[in-house]
């Protein structure tokens, strides 16, 4: 095992560059989101803490509020609504989908009932009327949707499919509710649970005729020696889940191991970092985003044209959907042009690190048209 991350990155890129050899390329064709109407302010959440918490969460994370589910909303309903939103902006109909992948961490139906079988993806495709497409669920913590996009990208490049959807509904706010019972100081292992918000997101990936457009690189890797830094499981004292995180260590290790993955994605895409317009990182806290920017700028000798995207203030950390919630907002606000190059950076428990590089292409046009 090499101890030098730069040497590792070089070694990996010395492998063949299969993307260039594949007959097909893929692109993100459409994005849809679903955000619950109900907002929960950080100060209101902190007031629920049973032990007077000595934590200024808003200053620490930059999160002012987040969306939370009302009665009648759950992971499945958020995913289905996001999938419909995505289809409404797409040229494709539900019947065109060859594959549907659900990537929720939380698989809650009928409130907080966690469903193992049948797969969530089955209920989503049935709701859409995409009955005969292949469906399965994927879980990879907060990198779930990136993992789903990577799978569709591989299947399209292999010529197995033409079009697929990745969808996720995250009714994850139960971990915040449960954390309010124990969080007291900044050192609490449930502090990170207070940053989450509920949401749904969906994305359609299809075959691209233009090899210069669309997805140029998708690199995801696991660093298993740190897989126990963040563990989520059912709460022992009530419904929903609880998540224990060694947040500082997790953040340090994720940032520390990200460089080879970013380099690999840049090499595969053929884009120097300075030619990337926007970098959208996983949304955990404004401090983490700043620290990441500083570290990557120093290590890469430069950075993207714009600051790293910060979408925390109103939505918080929406788990597997964060990148696509941020992307959707930027598209709706007209901040992205079709020629812009975007990199999504995934940091998830596992530890999973991912980098997806693509051009905006026609997604921007479909968003502008829809709004």
């Amino acid at each position: 095992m090499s101890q030098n991350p730069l040497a590792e990155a070089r070694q990996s890129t010395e492998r063949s560059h299969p993307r260039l050899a594949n007959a097909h390329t893929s692109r993100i064709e459409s994005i849809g989101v679903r955000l619950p109407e109900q907002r929960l302010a950080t100060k209101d959440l902190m007031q629920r803490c049973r032990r007077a918490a000595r934590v200024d969460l808003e200053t620490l994370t930059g999160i002012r509020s987040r969306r939370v589910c009302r009665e009648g909303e759950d992971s499945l309903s958020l995913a289905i609504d996001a999938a419909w939103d995505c289809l409404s902006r797409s040229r494709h109909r539900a019947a065109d989908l060859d594959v549907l992948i659900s990537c929720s961490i939380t698989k809650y139906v009928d409130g907080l009932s966690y469903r193992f079988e049948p797969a969530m993806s089955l209920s989503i495709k049935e709701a859409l009327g995409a009955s005969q497409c292949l469906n399965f669920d994927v879980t990879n913590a907060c990198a779930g949707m990136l993992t789903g996009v990577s799978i569709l990208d591989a299947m399209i490049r292999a010529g197995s499919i033409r079009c697929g959807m990745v969808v996720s509904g995250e009714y994850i706010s139960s971990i915040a509710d449960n954390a309010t019972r124990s969080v007291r100081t900044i050192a609490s292992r449930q502090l990170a649970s207070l940053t989450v918000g509920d949401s749904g997101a969906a994305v359609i990936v299809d075959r691209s005729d233009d090899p210069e457009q669309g997805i140029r690189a998708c690199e995801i890797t696991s660093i298993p020696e740190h897989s126990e830094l963040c563990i989520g499981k059912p709460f022992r004292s009530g419904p929903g889940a609880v998540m224990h995180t060694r947040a500082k260590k997790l953040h340090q290790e994720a940032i520390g191991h990200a460089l080879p993955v970013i380099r690999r994605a840049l090499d595969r895409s053929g884009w120097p970092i300075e030619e990337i317009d926007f970098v959208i990182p996983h949304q955990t806290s404004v401090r983490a985003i700043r620290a990441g920017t500083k570290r990557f700028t120093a290590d890469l000798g430069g950075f993207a044209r714009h600051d790293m995207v910060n979408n925390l203030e109103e939505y918080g950390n929406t788990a597997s959907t964060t990148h696509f919630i941020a992307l959707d907002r930027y598209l709706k606000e007209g901040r992205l042009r079709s020629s812009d190059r975007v990199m999504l950076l995934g940091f998830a428990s596992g530890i999973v690190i991912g980098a997806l590089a693509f051009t905006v292409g026609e997604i921007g046009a479909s968003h502008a048209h829809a709004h």
Partner: protein
Amino acid sequence: MRTRIESVGRARATARFRRASSIQLAADAAIAALDASGRDAADIDLLVNVGVYRDQNICEPALAPLIQRRIAPLAHRKDVFSFDLNNGTCGLINAFQVADAYLRTGSARRAMVLASDVDPNPRRSTGLALQASGVAVVVAAGDGREGFLGFHSETFSKHANLLESRLDWLGPRPRWIPGGAGHAIAMRTMEAYAERCAECSATSIAHFLENRSLGIDDIDLVLAADAPAGFVRRLTALCGLREGSVVSGEETAGAHTALPGLALESALKSGRLREARHTLFVTAGAGITVSLALYGS
């Protein structure tokens, strides 16, 4: 290029497990598969776990990196893509299909698919009859004639209510009650489930083979996971399969997601997989979902 099955490893819960661990079972099976392949793990780039029922009902992170951490040759690698893929008993075939795409594009050189299930709290679960076991399958890109020829999945959603399993909060209980307070898994299986699975599978097999201009007589070997119990017997009768052409892993009933892999291990060990010109993998699970794969040697 074809994706070929290189080796299979299995693990069973033994007395050394006080409570069987799905993570450890999958890791033990992975080591066995690597030993059987006779090659090191340096070029395994993809690790997919398809197990559904796991230690402590962990929902984050994916189980795959937790398993990878216990596979010594992979534990310190920093370039393996690992994640969970869940689709009940059909997960293994779906994972082969995903691995096939990564291998064909050259994004991965070899891949390992893992399956293991345990009941994390047998005293509280209802309807979940699992036999703790694990299986690991190594697949690689091959240049020869052997490998997967195609995949097919179909769902029959009118039967979606025939099997469902969930984890629910049972409410607070006094701590002195065995099992304590908390959540419990409930699997609800309707009586007609095995019968409907067999009927749906027979329909899917007919569609799949017809699309490939093959008949059931062209199939030399059928690897059918006997989940639900009695499924294989019904399928054999419905499809008119030749006696002795089916390997089902019946002796490991209750292995759930590992079951198709255990049937595969049996066929590989006996040499039947390599002898058969066409092998058909058949799995049926909740949904009802049927996943099939055709393998040529």
